[in-house]
């Protein structure tokens, strides 16, 4: 049901955009200019707002998850990347985490057999497909800069060249298009096939997958199957970022508007969803802190100095008689008192 709901929503969004541009007067301006701009502003504003909101809460304690040997005695080899104690080490750890998904690379799969016997196997699929998905997505976004810049900067040309170097067909097939659709399909399938993952998946997990798959599919359709007028489209898209709204909207295929509307939805949805892991991965205190808690004092802004330990004086008052009797040193000697008046020590 969660799967179907999410799929239905994405299909409805596509239909909405299609009817919008086909039927609604001014629909093309709405879906081509107004909504994308609104979505972009929403994305930018709420993304930054979310990060600022996170940043407003302090990190009261230094709580890195140490995944290797600490820095201790000079002759014991520290694991400087998985258990960094310096800023440089933390940068290294964060680089591996953000660009190579270091933690996910550790992934294992546990099985229980008769005995009972637990076995753990290496399981790198999620890491591999996750990496493929994110990098192809990144390349695709950057490639799209050809529609938002004029003249087109060198790195876009370089990506175009590299991505299309197979020179299969005309227009040439982009490797990232294939990788992207393949990876999204994998990520979806593992969600429905693996029992545990299926059980934890929410509509909020399926929806972005369908949305992103829809974006990929309409994009691929425009490039390879139902060809669209790229020059008119660029006049629109580049006009969006240069505030020149003179594009011949009528000569642009409705398919493009469907594609654009899904992207619009993604942008607007992003800051309110789990997709904010894009920002969160930079700020996770278990990863971005050095394991130097005993070396450098970490300051907690709300540390409450009024919380004091049960004092030694109170302790000694409680137990002085016993302590003296047991030969333990005391700060205050027993007051000379008649035995029957000795203070009750145990309550």
């Amino acid at each position, binding site marked *: 049901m969660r799967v179907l*709901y999410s799929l239905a929503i994405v299909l409805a969004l596509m239909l909405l955009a299609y009817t919008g541009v086909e039927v609604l007067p001014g629909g093309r301006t709405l879906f081509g200019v107004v909504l994308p701009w609104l979505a972009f502003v929403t994305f930018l504003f709420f993304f930054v707002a979310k990060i600022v909101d996170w940043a407003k*809460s302090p990190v*009261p304690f230094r709580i890195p998850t140490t995944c290797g040997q600490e820095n201790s005695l000079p002759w014991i*080899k520290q694991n400087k990347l998985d258990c960094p104690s310096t800023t440089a080490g933390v940068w290294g750890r964060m680089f591996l985490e953000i660009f190579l998904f270091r933690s996910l690379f550790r992934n294992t799969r546990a099985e229980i057999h008769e005995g009972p016997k637990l076995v753990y196997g290496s399981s790198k699929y999620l890491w591999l497909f996750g990496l493929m998905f994110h990098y192809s997505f990144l390349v695709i976004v950057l490639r799209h800069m050809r529609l938002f810049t004029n003249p087109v900067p060198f790195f876009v040309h370089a990506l175009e060249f590299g991505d299309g170097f197979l020179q299969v067909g005309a227009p040439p097939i982009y490797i990232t298009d294939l990788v992207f659709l393949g990876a999204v399909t994998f990520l979806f399938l593992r969600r429905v096939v693996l029992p545990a993952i299926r059980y934890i998946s929410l509509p909020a997990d399926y929806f972005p997958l369908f949305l992103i798959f829809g974006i990929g599919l309409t994009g691929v359709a425009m490039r390879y199957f139902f060809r669209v007028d790229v020059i008119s489209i660029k006049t629109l898209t580049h006009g969006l970022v240069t505030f020149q709204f003179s594009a011949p909207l009528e000569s642009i295929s409705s398919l493009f508007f469907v594609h654009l509307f899904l992207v619009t939805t993604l942008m607007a949805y992003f800051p309110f969803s789990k997709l904010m892991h894009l920002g969160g991965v930079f700020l996770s205190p*278990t990863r971005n802190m050095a394991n130097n808690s*005993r070396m450098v004092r970490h300051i907690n802004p709300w540390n409450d100095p009024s919380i004091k330990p049960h004092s030694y004086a109170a302790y000694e008052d409680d137990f002085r008689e016993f302590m003296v009797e047991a030969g*333990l040193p005391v700060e205050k000697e027993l007051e000379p008192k008649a035995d029957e008046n000795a203070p009750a020590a145990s309550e």
Partner: protein
Amino acid sequence: MADTKVGPMSLSVAKDPSLMTGAIPAKDWMDTPAIFKPGNYCYPGKKEIAAYHGKNLPGKFGESRDWKVEEDDWKLPENWKEIIINGIKERLDKFRSFKIFMDCCVRCGACADKCHFFLGTGDPKNMPVLRAELLRSVYRNEFTKAGKILGRFAGAREMTFGVLKEWFMYFYQCTECRRCSVFCPYGIDTAEITMMAREILHLVGVNTNWILEPASNSNRTGNHLGLQPHTFKENAEFLLDDIETVTGVRLNSLNFNRKGAEILFVIPSADVFAEPGIFTFMGYLLMFEHIGLDYTISTYSSEGGNFGLFTNNELMKKLNGKIYAEAKRLGVKWILGGECGHMWRVLHQYMDTMNGPTDFLQVPKSPITGTVFENAASTKMVHISEFTADLIKHGKLKLDPSRNNHRKVTFHDSCNPARAMGLLEEPRYILKNVCNNFYEMPENTIREQTFCCGSGTGLNTGEIMDLRMRGGLPRANAVKHVHDKHGVNMLSCVCAIDRATLLSLMQYWNPDVEVCGISELVGNALIMEGEQVRETGLRSEPLEGMEG
């Protein structure tokens, strides 16, 4: 001992339909209520003990009262929901980790089969991701736009008594071991989430006695069991007799509350009164005598362990404050800490922040080797394994490892020293120098991937024994592997809770394997001046070749 015999349990974990064995639960987790029955929950805190904590830290422990977990009336305050929602709000503002961990999870499921409680029970709500969702769903409902508008579709749900029961059940089936956090691509740490949830539960007086009582003892008498100063001293001194019997040497250096000592030694108090911790304690004492260390033990601060960590950061701070206070009063130069897991979580990651700065102490320097412990320059507290490893490296200990030949040893990395400190090589270095037969467990079960004993964070109580045996299964299973393969008969560790809980775990799953602290093996191997021919180890077991 556990209610279920090991045979039926073995069948149950591998065969009973569960998410671990491949069966998909029929109902959505939000529609599956938590049902308490004897054996699956810890007893609630006694009224007077909850009241004691409430008096010390007003507001943090709710209304003290007598209540029963299985009853449908937990005698919660009228406005308990409001307290909880405000509690969440307050913590979101205080802990960035909490905010980020509530927002960032993509439910990739990498954590799912990393939790020992999930592996042992197959209960879906023991997957770290779902454990967090128990709280996250309420967070979404109250604090996110998507949750407020879309409700259940966005994974949001209202705070109800049913949810509260779920929290009490599953945030007390998490030992804050951080294993899931190692695998999470965003470093989401369920320990952190469990800590928040427990803090919030305590606000409405939902608590467990096994945590509150040791914490209250610790506050007043200095240690978990509530040993008063004279008893504590007598217990420790009693062990000198045992040491003399085994080694023929009467130690002179044990002393208490002595001003002007160079080093304050803080231990988990279990080492003074419970087997096998007492053997670890004997090991410490033998080594200190051997090197002529100028140290003292405090009866006031006789507990390094800190059950406050399992309630809220305020009580943790309050209990921990004693260590620095006592170090200052006694005028020591620096502090040495014994073998304990969660104690070191507090000492390493919280102490200095909470109760520092420590300008009255000096950067720790080993009086024997001259090594300066730069890694403890601010906190001024050194782990006994760091200290011992340094001694061995400098050849300051006379050791006869063959005295541990009757032991085939493996090493259990305790969660906190491994994943909240990074103490991995020091104990191994010591082991390799004090015994001749050391075998590692499989790599997915040690070091940063180590499995919890299944009973940390105040779950080491008798009323949930079945649950503990399930939670400890992954650890026990790895021990069984080296037991079968190499004949391992001794599971060593650097944690006092482990020494207690692994003992029951081994008796249940691997009855041939015993449990010890590293320092016990050091004590066995140490060649003391004037000693007699050693025929037994510290626990009076015959050494190799001395069995007759």
